[in-house]
């Protein structure tokens, strides 16, 4: 199992960590560990890679939600992670994203990084497809406002507007 487990962590570690970061970055380390412990406990059988991806994403989101549980954790002031971003634009975008509610960051991450259609995002997050599309649209609007680059962001975002987006 250890070889297989090491392989799973090596392949899925970055995906899980990035998803955890997008949900609640201060706890990304703990969430990453918890997700793989759940994987080990459940040892799920996946139909295909899409199923595997959706499972890891869903469990990561669940773990983010569960972290509210411990008084010990709640009373612990999370350390602010400081990354040396490669460009000022990266830093600016990251700061802007942190101002969005987690539910918006989740759909942004899954749509723009994982390349998931809104229907798949809805299935992975147990939300309605229409809800996801609305959240994507709302997230874009907020980003436009935050980044104060309406022309540029509007242009780049609209180039990737999902065809089924009605929100």
């Amino acid at each position: 199992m250890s070889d297989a487990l090491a392989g799973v962590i090596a392949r899925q570690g970055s995906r899980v960590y990035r998803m955890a970061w997008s949900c609640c970055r201060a706890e990304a380390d703990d969430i990453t560990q918890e997700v793989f412990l759940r994987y080990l406990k459940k040892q799920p059988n996946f139909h295909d890679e899409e199923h595997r991806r959706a499972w890891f994403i869903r469990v990561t989101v669940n773990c983010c939600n569960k972290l509210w549980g411990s008084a010990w954790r709640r009373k612990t002031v999370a350390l602010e992670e400081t990354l040396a971003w490669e460009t000022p634009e990266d830093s600016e975008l990251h700061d802007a994203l942190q101002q969005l509610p987690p539910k918006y960051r989740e759909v942004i991450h899954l749509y723009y990084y994982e390349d998931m259609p809104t229907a798949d995002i809805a299935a992975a997050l147990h939300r309605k497809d229409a809800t996801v599309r609305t959240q994507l649209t709302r997230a874009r609007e907020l980003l436009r406002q935050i980044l104060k680059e309406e022309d540029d962001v509007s242009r780049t975002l609209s180039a990737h507007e999902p065809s089924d987006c009605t929100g």
Partner: protein
Amino acid sequence: MFRERYRHMSRQIAPDDALLRRTLQTAQVQENRKQKPARRILRPMAAMLAACLCLAIAMPALAANVEPVYEILYAVSPATAQFFMPVNKSCEDNGIRMEVESAYFHGDTAEIYVTMCDTEGKGRIDETTDLFDSYDINRPFDSACGCSFVDYNADTQTARFYITIQTMNGEPIDGGKVTFSVREFLSGKHEYEDVEIPGALDTAAGHARTRTVEIDGGGYPDGWTEEEAEEKLSGGQEVLATGEPYSTFPIDGIDLTGTCYIDGQLHIQLAMRNVRETDNHGFIWLEGADGTRVEELYVVMFDEDTTGYYEYIFDVPVDELAAYSLHGDFVTCDTGLTKGNWRVTFPLEQAE
């Protein structure tokens, strides 16, 4: 293009090597425990170092005689394990012996293996032993710490931990001596997952008796502003008057002391008994017949005597409540805190 810009940023977010090693170790320990309880992973340091060198040279030779924890350690970072230096210094207090087995100092990071053993055989060290954030490394720098349980040997009542400490300012840890200390730990923990509490919501629609208490804090969604959090989670707030504990609540150490609506929102109050000595805690949600989960809107917390109260607030209309049942994950502790003064001092030597 936004997609490329987002990806460029995201690719810079990645788990560091130490996190992957901790994750692998912890997962492997869970696996070992499931397959062979109380399996001990101790091995002589010289043999470990020899195995490391061989593995670093010839990874395909990774064979059955290499212990699993080290095997997966090498799978992620074969160059790292060989730098762990034996320490083997111990101290004993309150019938508990703490030993610093080995350590690896590199740059601004220290990685340490520590064991704790109940020499009086009272069962205070077990497979749930939790150092409860009470460990410290006595160095003149601010640091961030992480601690993972590694394994437990039931025969010797010995638990092993893997600890990482990193300076906050990035300055290297070097020279002199370091004192590793622990002042208390938790053991005898029980975890309960997805426990349904039948009938808990039956009387929630009735008249709410309330009181105002000083809130100590709570949990709230990331989307809230600081002003919103301040308004809801501090000062005097109206909460449910604490009622008789729900008689069939199935978790010892935690009571359900109220479910009722205040201002159109469902409040559910849990009482964590002896909370400072046990860290009893829980996480609850509402679940529909089709498995749909409704998470809380926010949580407020307040303490009275030795009890910590959590009041969960849900945004579920009263006329829809019948479609849901109450579920929760809970962690309790019956052994409680064991206190002592365990300190081991050893020299700091940076790995070459």
